């Protein structure tokens, strides 16, 4: 994102693995933060702190980034954004995804934690193609 500025949009879809204890709640935390306009901060702090993503830690991160903690807590408790997560899960299953992260770069599927240079190569190819 830093390298390509306004030429790239990154959209996040949630695909919490059902056998990981905190995968689902961390997705809910991301959306709860998004409701308060702080998705970016929560997204990045969770990536940094992972796998420490239990409920207590998430509440601490919410406080750290300046969220309304009570609203955040209520969002987690009521599973307010459950529909969005279910929607993304269904999409992932429909796409037959089996690994995270999975990227779609202008629709081209890239599976797994690939080297940055490889992702960059695809990005450059697609940006060049978009210019034509």
């Amino acid at each position, binding site marked *: 994102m830093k390298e390509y500025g306004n030429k790239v*949009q*990154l*959209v*996040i879809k949630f695909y919490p693995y059902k056998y990981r204890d*905190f995968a689902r709640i961390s*997705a809910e935390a991301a959306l709860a933060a998004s409701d308060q306009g702080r998705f970016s901060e929560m997204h990045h702090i969770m990536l940094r702190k992972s796998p420490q993503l239990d409920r207590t830690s998430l509440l601490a991160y919410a406080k750290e980034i300046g969220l309304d903690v009570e609203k955040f807590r209520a969002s987690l408790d009521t599973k307010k954004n459950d529909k*969005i997560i279910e929607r993304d899960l269904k999409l992932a299953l429909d796409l037959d995804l089996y690994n995270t*992260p999975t990227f779609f770069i202008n629709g*081209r599927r890239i599976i797994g934690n690939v080297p940055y240079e*490889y992702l960059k190569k695809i990005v450059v190819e697609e940006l060049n193609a978009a210019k034509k």
Partner: protein
Amino acid sequence: MQGTAISSPPPLSSHVSGIPLLWLGGGNCRKNILKRLSGLVSVVSRVYGGKMRKLLLIILFAGLLIGTASAEIKRYTIPVEGSPSFGQRDAPLTIVEFIDYQ
């Protein structure tokens, strides 16, 4: 090949359609085709000699390169409305990332 996976190899047919035939059908298909090609090269070499074998190898290799180059990239349409994002909505390039934070 597109779709390099670190953790486990993807079904390659979901990334590339058309030629190269070698990459469709999985490992057994590849082994069978390579075995047959190897047999063909041996036969040609015995019947026509070393020069023909070299010519056949060059033709096969060129065919593989052309096939790989002409293979189509499969693209998926991913709906993005209602999902959190970074960057501008009208950017020329959209990356959708399916993520598990844990």
